[in-house]
């Protein structure tokens, strides 16, 4: 990707708090109009990165470019960004309208222009009836809408979201998630979204950057991240329930794990290992085949069911395979009992194989 069409560019960014390196030599180009999600567990530096982009934290080294301008030393308000926070961060003593206009009044935007922008934001977010209320009189979902509105009225190129849905209950979170996606489709702004929730990341993102220890582990579309994770960390992090990993060796077209020889057939190696290379194979619970699908499975084996977890839409089966706990997903309508023996099929071509030492994809 060239930097010319980049909306936000992060160049060789370093950030340390004393001896603790929070971000290390980080490079990232975000395309104009892209929805980029920074995903990672807590402490991985994703929120820190967002704060550095916003100008709320100073980097130790490196540059931030927004819309072709080096904004590394610019104030947050001069960067052309709007930000939405997890705790909404609405000014409690101001009405919703006061909250929306605070930034514009600070920037001395003309009155009729303020009026026009507030009207537009209120219409987009459907908060017109709330304009005269104080934040204390709003529900969580309404508050977050107002917080988004505050970013919207600024008429900026880049939106930054810092876990905006984490304080909401599950149902509201799902609703607002869809609204956010619609908003992005309408506005076509660049959006950078920080979350630890992989469902939010998968559903919202054009591209996901998975972070760990201040570094980006993989940057790619949700399909790439899910289908071809570049390393074991990403493979383990994405997917719920997560992959089951088996240690073994790769020998030509066969992956040998304890008691099973899995034919690799159609597996696309990124770099084909030599014979007898120690490796780890990861199998997603939803890629295990049962029943009628078995016919297409290159490898079949029998297991004894240890535990059944019905989830409604599907059912999780816990069992042992190759001397290790193993779980897989079946259709919700399947009737399976504890102790039953069933045949399952595995397609190693859909699995992921990693080098045992480097944990990089093979």
């Amino acid at each position, binding site marked *: 990707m060239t930097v010319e069409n980049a909306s936000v560019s992060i160049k060789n960014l370093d950030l340390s708090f004393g001896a603790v390196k929070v971000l290390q030599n980080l490079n990232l180009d975000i395309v104009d109009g892209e929805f980029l999600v920074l995903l990672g567990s807590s402490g991985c530096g994703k929120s820190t990165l967002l*704060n550095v982009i*916003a*100008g*709320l934290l100073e980097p130790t080294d490196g540059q931030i470019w927004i819309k072709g301008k080096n904004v590394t030393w610019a*104030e*947050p*308000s001069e960067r052309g*960004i*709007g*930000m939405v*926070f*997890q*705790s909404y*961060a*609405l*000014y*409690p*003593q101001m009405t919703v309208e006061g909250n929306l206009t*605070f*930034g514009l009044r*600070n*920037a001395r935007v003309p009155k009729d222009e303020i009026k026009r922008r507030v009207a537009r934001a209120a219409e987009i977010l459907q908060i017109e009836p709330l304009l005269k209320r104080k*934040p*204390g009189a709003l529900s969580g979902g309404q508050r977050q809408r107002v917080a988004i509105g*505050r970013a919207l009225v*600024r008429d900026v190129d880049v939106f930054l979201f*810092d876990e905006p849905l984490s304080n909401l209950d599950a149902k509201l979170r799902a609703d607002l998630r869809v609204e956010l996606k619609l908003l992005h489709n309408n506005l076509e702004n660049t959006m950078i979204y920080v979350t630890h929730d992989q469902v939010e990341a998968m559903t919202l993102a054009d591209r996901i950057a998975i972070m760990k220890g201040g570094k980006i582990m993989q940057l790619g579309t949700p399909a790439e991240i899910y289908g071809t994770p570049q390393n074991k960390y990403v493979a383990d992090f994405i997917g719920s329930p997560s992959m089951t990993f088996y240690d073994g060796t790769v020998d030509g077209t066969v992956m040998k794990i304890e008691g099973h020889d899995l034919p690799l057939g159609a597996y696309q190696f990124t770099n084909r290992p030599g014979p007898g290379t120690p490796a780890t194979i990861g199998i997603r619970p939803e890629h295990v085949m049962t029943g009628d699908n078995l016919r297409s499975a290159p490898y079949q084996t029998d297991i004894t069911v240890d535990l059944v977890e019905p989830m409604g839409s599907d059912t999780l089966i816990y069992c042992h395979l190759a001397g290790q706990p193993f779980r897989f997903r079946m259709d919700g309508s399947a009737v399976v009992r504890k102790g039953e023996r069933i045949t399952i099929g595995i397609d190693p071509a859909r699995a992921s194989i990693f080098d045992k030492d480097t944990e990089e994809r093979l």
Partner: protein
Amino acid sequence: MADIGILAATKSAEHPVYRMIDGPRGAKPKNRFSRANIIVYGTLFVVALYYALPLYVMIVTSLKGLPEIRVGNIFAPPLEVTFQPWVKAWQEACTGINCDGLSRGFWNSVRILIPSLILSVAIASINGYALSMWKFRGSEVFFTILMIGAFIPYQVMLYPIVILLREAGLYGSLTGLVLVHVAFGMPINTLLFRNYFASIPEELFKAARVDGAGFWAIFFRIMLPMSLPIFVVAVIIQVTGIWNDFLFGVTYISSPDRYPMTVQLNNIVNSVQGVKEYNVNMAATLLTGLVPLVIYFASGKLFVRGIAAGAVKG
């Protein structure tokens, strides 16, 4: 037609006999005169009495004439209520050469209190805001030094400050005393404000910065409107502290003309010439204590809210 089931249900709830038959139901009845209650309320009553008694004695004594006081019976209510002692304490009581009562000291104290209060609360709030929101290199060290200041006994600093004020040409003046009060109120009030502002979510501050507000705009338009409770606490601490101060007043004021009320009260009560006028002394003491008392009564609720400041969130 009434539903028999509902009738039966209401009956059994209301009627004691049904209640016994049905067994326990609803809230468990409580015995108001249980042993625990008697001990708790009894103790509270005794303690309250213990605290209220001196005040009672002061009030009734201040309303009696001298002949009645000489009889003894300090707990007896006045047979003949007179406000003469109050008038005398305010207008006529003698301290040294001046015989115009406490009124002089009262106005001196007001002249000391108002500028000290405004200056110290204003500076401390800005200090606290800067120390919690705009951390700079060395801000923690600065704060620690300020805190150490709070723990140095006043006596150690009394004389050095005399020299400082003398060199500045302020010794003996009200201005000098105001400066001393502002300086000594600084550590505790800064701590108070810093902790309060630290409890305000950081994201609010970040949002204001993204909205283009600077140091003063965030302080005046975001933080101040949220800080009424803590300002009330600071005002109460400062008013009572400055008004009740005796040590600084007697040390840094050189002329009886400018003594604050507390120092003047001491001079009235401890004067050794003539008859001890207990009623006038009591009235004078009550008059002096009136200002902090009024402040407490006027702001009690807000005070409690400010003390529990952690609960005040946006």
